[in-house]
């Protein structure tokens, strides 16, 4: 790779040792990034790796604590997004930030409309449409500039957003998850535009969770993990497996065998039982392809897959948090069709801890006790309050059982640490005595002590006969806890097998479709 460096042209943007700290959290730690003209540069990393922080640092949204940025070799630190745009850095976000009830041309030239007579004269519509048409044609986008933006599908709106971004003489175009809501044809169309721009010399930063897309479009990869750059590679010299290993931080040599002797007996026992829940062909357009899944009592089913693989979507569909388009869901033999709402699911003894604790879990202003009792109270309805004695007993019981600290249930929940908040949410569901517990990233962002406690709890619950679905970005954790493993990739279930003699390496092989041993060899060579 060092040879490649020699023949490279001067980078348009060079970030050197950039660090950003939020309070006690170091979001970026000495990160360097080089963007070359005429290249699609993929920024890779799991949740919290620092991708969005890096983009925001580059576009002037965040100022950094240490480090430098050079544009065309000239030192430059933008204080504001406007300054970054001035320097030729444009961003297109996942959600289209345009005005749907203006025309395509109006959107493209918003804020710099051509005027007649003078700078303060009326807008020259004909000139505006002409210019917009020229830029669209240049990118091969076939849209009528006079049509209303909102009348087009999201994919086309996104292309218009790109055309607008490029039209401001962008030399660097940042595309933050532009494909997450597009179907295959639309992605192909987007890639066509991206290739055209690349060939015209634009440096493109591409963020996506779809590995196949990354390998199709990108020339270079920068991989982030925990706020640090863990690798910069040429895409053609990198395998999917290697990329994933870098992203989730596995050292193959250091992998330990996980003892699952206990699991196997439990799993064998589970096979004889009746299913608690079975989903057939459950799916939803744009989030998960039709998927089958059966859950048994006393069994932990681990869901493995990268971010964006559909792991969260699966849990949400099972719980009725999102309405499925297709498929049937049977809970405890009562052949209901699909679940219409979480309420519906809870009435069938399901429980779901969302991965987004803050937005979808806690009620920040309410006390720990209120947060804990809310699930049960919601089931009873407002007319049947939980008697104070019962309430106090339950709260005290779960404060102790889950070791929630500080042990004062009257404190507002926002004053607790992430791990303790998570335990309160677990308590909320355990109090409802569910048959099926869906846990989406229950250990994310919490300290190691609380993490082990939660893992232990999951194992205990399954031991007592609960059916648990365990989703986590950490494969080790999934493998340690689950009796059965389901692997998802690109919104599809690609494998399901008993968790017998599977290690992290095997899972990576399933996800990337490449033999792991080969990578080990390549690494040894390097």
């Amino acid at each position, binding site marked *: 790779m060092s040879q490649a460096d020699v023949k490279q042209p001067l980078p348009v943007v060079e970030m050197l040792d950039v660090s950003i700290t939020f309070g006690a959290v170091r979001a970026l730690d000495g990160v360097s990034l080089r963007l070359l003209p005429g290249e699609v540069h993929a920024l890779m990393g799991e949740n919290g790796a620092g991708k969005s922080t890096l983009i925001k640092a580059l576009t002037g949204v965040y100022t950094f604590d240490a480090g430098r940025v050079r544009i065309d070799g000239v030192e430059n630190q933008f204080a504001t997004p406007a300054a970054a745009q001035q320097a030729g850095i444009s961003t297109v976000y996942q959600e289209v930030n345009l005005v749907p009830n203006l025309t395509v041309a109006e959107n493209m030239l918003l804020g710099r409309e051509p005027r007649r007579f003078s700078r303060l004269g009326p807008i020259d519509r004909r000139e505006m449409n002409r210019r917009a048409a020229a830029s669209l044609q240049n990118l091969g986008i076939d849209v009528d500039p006079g049509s209303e933006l909102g009348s087009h599908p999201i994919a086309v709106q996104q292309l218009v957003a790109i055309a607008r971004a490029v039209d401001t003489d962008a030399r660097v175009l940042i595309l933050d998850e532009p494909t997450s809501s597009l179907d295959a044809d639309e992605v192909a169309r987007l890639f066509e535009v991206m290739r055209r721009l690349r060939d015209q010399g634009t440096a493109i930063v591409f963020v996506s969770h779809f590995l196949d897309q990354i390998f199709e479009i990108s020339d270079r990869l920068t991989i982030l993990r925990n706020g640090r750059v863990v690798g910069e590679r040429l895409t053609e010299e990198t395998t999917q497996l290697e990329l994933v290993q870098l992203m989730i931080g596995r050292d193959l040599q250091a992998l330990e065998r996980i003892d699952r002797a206990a699991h196997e007996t439990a799993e064998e026992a589970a096979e004889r039982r009746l299913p608690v829940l079975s989903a057939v062909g459950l799916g939803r357009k744009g989030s998960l392809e039709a998927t089958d899944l059966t859950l048994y009592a006393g069994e932990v089913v681990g869901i493995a897959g990268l971010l964006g693989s559909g792991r969260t979507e699966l849990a949400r569909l099972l719980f009725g948090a999102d309405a499925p388009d297709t498929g049937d869901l049977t809970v405890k033999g009562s052949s209901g069709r699909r679940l219409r709402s979480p309420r519906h699911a809870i009435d069938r003894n399901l429980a779901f801890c969302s991965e987004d604790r803050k*937005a*979808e879990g806690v009620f920040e202003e309410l006390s720990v006790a209120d947060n804990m009792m809310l699930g049960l109270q919601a089931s009873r309805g407002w007319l049947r309050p939980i008697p104070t004695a019962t309430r106090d007993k339950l709260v005290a019981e779960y404060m102790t059982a889950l070791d929630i600290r500080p042990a004062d249930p009257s404190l507002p929940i926002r004053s607790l640490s992430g791990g303790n908040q998570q335990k309160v949410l677990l308590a909320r569901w355990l109090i409802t005595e569910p048959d099926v517990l869906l846990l989406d990233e229950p250990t994310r962002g919490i300290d190691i002590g609380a993490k082990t406690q939660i893992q232990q709890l999951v194992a205990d619950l399954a031991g007592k006969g609960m059916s648990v679905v365990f989703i986590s970005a950490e494969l080790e954790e999934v493998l340690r806890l689950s009796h059965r493993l389901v692997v998802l990739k690109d919104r599809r279930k690609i494998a399901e097998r008993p968790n017998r003699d599977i290690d992290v390496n095997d899972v990576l092989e399933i996800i990337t479709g490449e033999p792991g041993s080969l990578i080990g060899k390549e690494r040894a060579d390097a």
Partner: protein
Amino acid sequence: MPEPTRTMAVKEVGARAVSHRLFWPLAALGTLLAINLIATPTFFNVRIQDGHLYGSLVDIVRNGAPVLLVGIGMTLVIATRGIDLSVGAVAAIAGAVACVYIVKSPADGAVGTAVVAISMALAVCVALGLWNGFLVAVVGIQPIIATLVLMVAGRGIAMLVTGGQITTVNNDAFAALASGHLLTLPVAALIALGVFAATQIVVRRTALGLLIESVGINPEASRLAGVRSRTIIWTVYVFAALCAGAAGLIIAANTHSVNANSLGLWIELDAILAVVIGGTSLAGGRFSLTGTLVGAMLIATLTRTIPNIGIPAEANYLFKALVVVIVCLLQSPKARAVLQRRREPIPTSREEAVV
């Protein structure tokens, strides 16, 4: 040493009082009452005449009853992240329905007629609340728009009911809603305070308060926790309409008549003000009915103060706005932070001086 310790303890209590949610509204209320007392030394005098309690303070509570009633309903609606702009129109409809029924009834002076009229009016209010709740909870229209529909259409409905005429009634039982006395106290005030106490008990003794707050604080988390948000939202809009109806009946009873155009006009604004002054955030979530009580009494006192201290009637609205702005500013997090900061260094410097 004991001397400074005691002053510090006093300071601490003082600081805690100042940082209390209701400190500034109560301080404003106190100030207004003091101003009135200076302007009219007999302001606080209360006397019993014919077994009825009379006096300016009693008048304030009596006249503040409609705003308090509407404010109670509004508090719960706002706590769910909603707002109800239609309460004024609903009050007008309630007044219209009751008055027209009484006028058309053959026994228009009978107690029974008044009871039926009041029941009918409140039943209509339930229907109107169901309509608002339907638009907000089921159709999913933003509350401000959804209730704007009835705010505008409601006046029209009231006009239709009264046939565009000012309808005057002659029914002592009905009039007693506003001017009657029970156990020496004005009935209107008793109704408002009774509804206040009952609501306070219901929201805090059942789980209604908790569930209302959960819907207001985090609607998505509520949905995932299985809270029946639709039922909760429906409940608060129906309750708000009932409160508005009760207020409308008291206003109509007070004038023995109903004018569909003016009954309860702008009362939604006073009610929202009372809620905001009382410290309930328009962003929803935690609410304080006691705060609304203080807010409503502040507004009623203000209305009474303006003529009492000789402010010309033309300056009426301006003065009212001024007081409201000052109270709201003092309550704002920024002003609190500034006051907090200014207060904090004092004890330290004292301490240093003592050492």
